[in-house]
């Protein structure tokens, strides 16, 4: 019985130590690596793409977009695809974009349609990727206007996920360690 209390207790204290490490990691603030804001117009049935950016589990992207008119907004993983050397764009036109979307549906991270609307999102991938932001004007007659802020943020770990694990693991560890700690305290008292 005493041996089981010891095993359970030490497993509990180890779990508490791991939870503390996870909690510590989760409270370390993010760093803004690059921030830029820009605005552009997108002609009817045309596509606008930004340059590609390497993202990874420790480097996410925050995006604030405000659209006047109607625009489809995509965040795509373009992998090893190279931009057109003349235009600097990944997709020359809507047809090429559609071809990519049809053939690589697993590379689509976001696919939203904004109609005189705005959004503010943060994305951290769970793998290494080469991401680009794409705006497509689906209208055949109206020009759309977009303002967007892009911020690349670096963090040690996905804070919410790590903190949730720490919050679950720490109480389990405490429950496991209580009999062992009480036992130790009683023994010390007897001495």
């Amino acid at each position: 019985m005493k041996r089981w209390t010891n095993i359970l207790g030490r497993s509990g204290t180890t779990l508490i130590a791991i939870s503390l490490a996870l909690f510590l990691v989760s409270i370390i603030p993010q760093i803004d690596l690059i921030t830029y804001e820009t605005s552009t117009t997108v002609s009817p049935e045309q596509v606008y793409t930004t340059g590609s950016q390497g993202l990874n589990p420790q480097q996410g992207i925050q995006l604030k977009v405000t659209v006047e008119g109607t625009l489809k907004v995509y965040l795509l993983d373009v992998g090893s695809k190279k931009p057109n050397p003349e235009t600097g764009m990944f997709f020359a036109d809507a047809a090429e974009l559609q071809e990519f979307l049809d053939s690589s549906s697993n590379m689509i991270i976001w696919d939203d349609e904004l109609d005189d609307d705005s959004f503010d999102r943060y994305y951290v991938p769970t793998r290494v990727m080469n991401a680009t932001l794409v705006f497509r004007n689906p209208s055949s007659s109206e020009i759309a206007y977009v303002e967007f802020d892009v911020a690349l943020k670096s963090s040690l770990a996905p804070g919410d996920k790590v903190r949730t694990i720490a919050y679950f693991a720490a109480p389990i560890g405490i429950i496991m360690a209580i009999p062992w700690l009480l036992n130790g305290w009683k023994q010390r008292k007897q001495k």
Partner: protein
Amino acid sequence: MGKGKPFLEVLASAIHEDFRFPFLEIFAFLYALGTFVLASFTVSIYTQTATNEAVAYAVTTSLLSGSLIVFVLLIFKNVAYGLGSDLEKGIIQTYFSYPLRRRGILTAKLLSALGVSLLLFLGIQISALYILAPDIVLPQFSTIILTYAANLSYPLLISAIMLLMTLILRRGGIGLVVGIVLYVAMNIVSGIAFFVALATESPLMLQIISLISPSYALQYHYGGLSGVSELSSLTWNPTLSETLLYIGGSYVIVASLFVLGYIYFSRRLNL
């Protein structure tokens, strides 16, 4: 009474000695923290064409670069200092009175010193890596395990040498110092081997080093020598099967040394 119970008695006693409170907790904390702090995807960012395997290898190597030393210190302490002090204090002689073969006693001691430490190290680091990058860990699990296997071979080799020294000298101090010196010396030796390989334009020295520390073979398998192509025409890009041979070969050497330790402990150690 069967042999199982005395074995568990010795194992429990060894674990109690090797991981006194709060050793286990401190190392668990460091491994968990180290995984997130040391993980680096930087290599992968600038090499967009890198394969998923290379990404998994790069991330695992970045973790190991700092945390391996913590693991090495733990196993060196357990093998040299733990076993050495047991021999000096006569605790091993007490174990000999148990209805258990000598090799069973050594197995229990090594399970505690190396097995528990390995379980803690690999369990925490791979779980933490999974939390961080599940889409890298799951598809490339074999690459991650291979990277750990290649990097752990040399510390295990030193552990086997330290075990032999501790048994022969019956004290752990010298074994511990030799272990630390050997661990540091490998960085110097590999540096020399690299320059000799560049100068002679032959990968022979790197191949010899890789037999002892196969992490170098794995490094060249994924990275090659592209960075030094302007300095020398030396090229060494071992295939995966060649790399596996180096890893296998190094573990054969490690296993042989541990077998020697077992033979010495069972037949030659007069206590």
